[in-house]
């Protein structure tokens, strides 16, 4: 059976051209970028070229890009080290939302234990943060606002421009986690007043274990990792050169055509499901304010894990919310935040596309899925 991979919000296949670009940096150009000799210089040059590519993609200066081990690290870095570096003068308040990735939420939980106050903003039924709520939540103790750009579960894309403007007016640092939206939704730091952006590679056909944090010049932030002084002294540790090369390559090959294609497949799948399956409902917004690759649907009366199981038996890989959620039995905090009951949250599945998915695959799913839902509804106590 041919496998159909629809869990690209969890991670993507590394593009062949990315692999090709990376390979020499394992066994030919394997120098440590801190070494002075030829190998070191070669690695350093490649790393800095990559930094420029990534910086350009968001309109930043190359020395505002700091490589990390991924999105989790970059988010931990922001929440903790913006917090610690700015906590003087009584500032101890962080604002975030109820729909962040666990790495932001759990970092915020830690900050609360350390004496910080954290406000978790509500979102509306489609997952949008109201910029007015951000404005109202800011006090003279607030030091940071962190809002996820494109939501990993329901695809909602936030209005960074409006939120950024408010933060700038109030003199509060503004951070966004752009892991899901990077290269899919334009983000330009020359236009959007934003101080910190989390990026990673493995959602865009790059390798796992590499990401970056954009830090606007002048931002007061401490180091997360202390050591030999890499990354302008803010992030020590021998740089992951193959990862960095692969990351830059992935950014370079991302293009509008692929986004368009994903949008079309997304809408075909959403509309097809809603038309052919009764009592199915789209979670999150429709159209341009939704990530081009995200589909999240609530099937009344059936349990998502069971749907996933039958899909899996047909070699279709889906997800019940976020990959991390599978560690727990709790309903998704994002679906609860948009007003779903725990039962509805547990009846929702996420299908997330990449440029590698095809129309044929979508047609196949549209053939299989109605049968699965019908079968499960027969088993279900709710009918």
């Amino acid at each position, binding site marked *: 059976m041919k496998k159909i991979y629809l869990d690209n919000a969890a991670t993507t296949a590394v593009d062949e051209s990315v692999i090709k670009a990376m390979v020499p940096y394992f066994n030919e150009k394997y120098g440590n970028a801190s070494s002075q000799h030829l190998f070191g210089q070669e690695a350093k040059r490649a790393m800095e070229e990559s930094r420029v590519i990534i910086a350009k993609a968001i309109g930043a200066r190359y020395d505002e890009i700091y490589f990390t081990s991924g999105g989790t690290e970059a988010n931990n870095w922001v929440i903790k080290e913006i917090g610690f570096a700015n906590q003087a003068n009584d500032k101890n308040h962080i604002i975030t939302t109820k729909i962040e990735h666990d790495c932001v939420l759990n970092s915020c939980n830690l900050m609360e234990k350390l004496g910080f106050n954290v406000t978790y903003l509500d979102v509306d039924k489609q997952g949008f943060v109201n910029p007015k709520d951000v404005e109202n939540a800011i006090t003279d103790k607030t030091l940071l606002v962190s809002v996820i750009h494109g939501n990993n579960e329901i695809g909602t894309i936030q209005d960074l421009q409006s939120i950024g403007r408010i933060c700038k007016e109030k003199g509060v640092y503004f951070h966004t986690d752009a892991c899901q939206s990077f290269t899919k939704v334009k983000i330009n730091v020359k236009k959007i007043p934003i101080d910190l952006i989390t990026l990673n590679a493995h959602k865009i056909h790059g390798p796992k274990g590499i990401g970056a944090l954009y830090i606007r010049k002048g931002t007061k932030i401490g180091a997360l990792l202390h050591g030999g002084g890499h990354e302008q002294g803010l992030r020590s540790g021998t740089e992951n050169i193959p990862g960095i090369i692969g990351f830059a390559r992935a950014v370079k090959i991302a293009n509008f055509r692929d986004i368009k294609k994903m949008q079309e497949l997304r809408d075909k799948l959403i509309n097809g499901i809603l038309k052919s399956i009764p009592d199915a409902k789209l979670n999150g917004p429709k159209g341009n304010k939704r990530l081009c690759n995200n589909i999240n649907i609530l099937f009344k009366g059936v*349990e998502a894990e069971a749907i996933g199981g*039958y899909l899996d038996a047909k070699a279709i890989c889906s997800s019940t919310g976020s990959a991390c959620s599978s560690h727990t039995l709790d*309903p998704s905090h994002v679906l609860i935040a948009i007003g779903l009951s725990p039962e509805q949250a547990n009846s929702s599945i996420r299908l997330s596309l990449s440029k590698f998915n095809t129309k044929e695959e979508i047609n196949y799913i549209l053939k299989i899925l109605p049968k699965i839902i019908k079968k499960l509804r027969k088993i279900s106590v709710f009918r």
Partner: protein
Amino acid sequence: MTYSKKLIKIFENPKNVGEIKDANAKARVKSSICGDIMDIYLKIGDNKIEDIKFQTFGCIASIISGSVLTEIVKGKKINDVKKINQKHILRKLNGLPPIKFHCADLALSTLKKAIKDYEKKKGK
């Protein structure tokens, strides 16, 4: 998936699914752990389970557990069924991930509650 091939086979074709219209006992239990729900219908005659069916709003493991448990007890004497505990069913569900043990419990406690329902009605 984290389930064995044998369990997946059961999941793909669960037995004893549905309702019994003229059931003489039934029960619904909501798991205190995951919030999922199971219904069990019993048709008991001569102190024996003549027919049993289940429905669930639950995960893969709950469907497997419902199928396996109902197959074990179908045709058995009530007194024997009452002796079944978690160990018995988990043995049959060899390979169930530990995080899913409560799903087997859900099936078992729904069955026990249905039997109680029968005995209560009979006592009257």
